[in-house]
């Protein structure tokens, strides 16, 4: 039996840097040797608000990139949107601050054993883990095309250095303020029929993932998506983060997106039943 949370550790990570990038903060944390265990798709759970905080739950953030850094040992990068009190607190942490993290958590993106052609689709800060994923796929010899979308330009996260591992990158904004005007899902049907894509990897809002899945279900293409459900614990003990997923036999059960996800096989997720009683 595989051990749940088997790579996870709770540790105090130092903030190595914290920079604003558009509407997001790029935060680099020193997690030492633990970085070696972090794979694209995994996430960290962070204690927010300091000692006297009224916030009792951790916040989940995707690990965007993992680096082996000479000065600090291993570091992980997060791309954080200042949303509510907890993420705002995180975005306000300065270099040198110590942060209580549990990492790495959750499933990772599956990497093809063959150098196939893949499509990466990200919405908003959902692009964060895709650049780290692209590096791995690229090293495996895959051809990586990427589509990023958001409502507006400064919600697009697309760092310069990230583009190196990507063969093509197209950007879509709903207001047309960057790249093409429209939705990131618009070009997918033609891409899937024109190119020989084996896997679509996606990360972003649930509605986007569901829309992508509608498209891939018409094809033979595998859809690996990183879902985002509210999580109270991040380690599988609370049962709050569930969504309906079928197994190979077609039996549907409520799986925990923190340990059976966030990366899931899109074809098995019962998108129309998310948020319903089974």
């Amino acid at each position, binding site marked *: 039996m595989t*051990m*749940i*949370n*088997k790579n*996870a550790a*709770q540790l105090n990570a130092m903030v190595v840097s914290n920079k604003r990038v558009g509407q997001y903060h790029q935060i680099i944390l020193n997690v030492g040797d633990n970085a070696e265990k972090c794979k694209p798709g995994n996430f960290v759970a962070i*204690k927010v608000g300091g000692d006297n905080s*009224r*916030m*009792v*739950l*951790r916040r989940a953030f995707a690990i965007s990139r993992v680096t082996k850094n000479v000065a600090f040992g291993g570091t992980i990068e997060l791309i954080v949107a200042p949303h509510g009190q907890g993420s705002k607190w995180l975005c306000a942490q300065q270099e040198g601050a110590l942060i*209580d993290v*549990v990492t790495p958590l959750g499933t990772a993106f599956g990497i093809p054993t063959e150098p196939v052609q893949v499509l990466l689709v990200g919405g908003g800060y959902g692009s964060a883990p895709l650049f780290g994923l692209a590096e791995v796929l690229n090293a495996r010899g895959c051809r990586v095309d990427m589509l990023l979308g958001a409502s507006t330009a400064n919600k697009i996260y697309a760092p310069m250095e990230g583009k190196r591992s990507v063969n093509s990158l197209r950007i879509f904004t709903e207001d047309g303020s960057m790249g093409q005007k429209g939705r990131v899902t618009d070009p997918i049907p033609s891409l899937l029929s024109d190119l020989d894509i084996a896997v679509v990897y996606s990360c972003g809002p649930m509605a986007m993932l569901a829309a992508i899945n509608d498209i891939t279900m018409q094809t033979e293409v595998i859809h690996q998506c990183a879902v985002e*459900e*509210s999580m*109270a*614990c*991040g*380690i*599988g*003990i*609370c*049962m*709050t*983060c*569930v*969504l*309906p997923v079928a197994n190979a036999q077609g039996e549907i*059960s*409520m799986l925990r997106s923190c*340990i059976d996800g966030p990366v899931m096989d899109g074809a098995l997720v019962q998108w129309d039943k*998310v*948020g*319903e*009683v*089974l």
Partner: protein
Amino acid sequence: MSELDLSTTLGNAWFPTPIFTASGCASSGRELAQFFALNEIGGVVTKSVMSKARTGRPTPRMAETPSGMLNSIGLQGPGIDVFIEKDIPYLVSQKARTIVSIAGETVEEYSTLARKLRSVAGISAVEVNISCPNVENRGLVFACDPEASRRVIDGVRRTLGGELPIIAKLSPDVTDLVAIAKGVVDAGADALALINTVLGMVINLDTMRPHLGGKTGGLSGPAIKPIAVRAVYQVHAALPKTPILGMGGISNGRDALEMIVAGASGVSIGTASFGNPTALVTIQNELRELLHAKGFASLRDAVGFAHREEAGK
């Protein structure tokens, strides 16, 4: 200090320390085993199990609140048979002392669950979660109805025989908690677990509707600690001989000690594990140090200490 005797008993079950997981806050144990050895703590209280598999309530199932959270899981679980087949052997293999929590929708369902547990090896006690809607009586929660509470415990007692201790878990959402406690003790409960979550609601100001899929949810965490301490104190005053497993918002050693001197023989840690996967061992260590610093030779001496006679009165 390592000499300090932390051991405790709930009915005839002995535990090396008074620190337990809270039902529904440690799943089946496996998930926490990466963070500490399950046999290091007093014991694992498993998620309430029902006779059949259940998928539970719709999402969202949680909302954070000031110093607390609401949950609305709806007793999702695999059902007793799968539980006995898969989860108990794991806990036994880890040498974890195990308290199995059961939940039912009818008096009969509780007895059925007890019958299945009777012959299972490796269980230290049964916690009977009576904070469930009684389908036979207008969905009225068992724990809110003295008569229904008694009948559940009575049925479980008869089925189990005298061996396994029964811990009746009560809800604080009642007018007269002591009356309910007395009723279930009369009906055969060896110990009481206090408190289950407090009924609450959060409105989502984006959708302008109740945030949780199940509309209402159970409030847990530090916010409810004063309610839990009051409940334990009141019930211990009325039933000083009945051991209490105290819970509700315990997040550190001081909280645990507060609960113990109020009258708890053991404490369960729920929500604190969500914020801190190593909470149980941290709390256990802090409690040991505090008891030592306060001059107690054993945990037992501290249980109910806040009730001692005032000098000169």
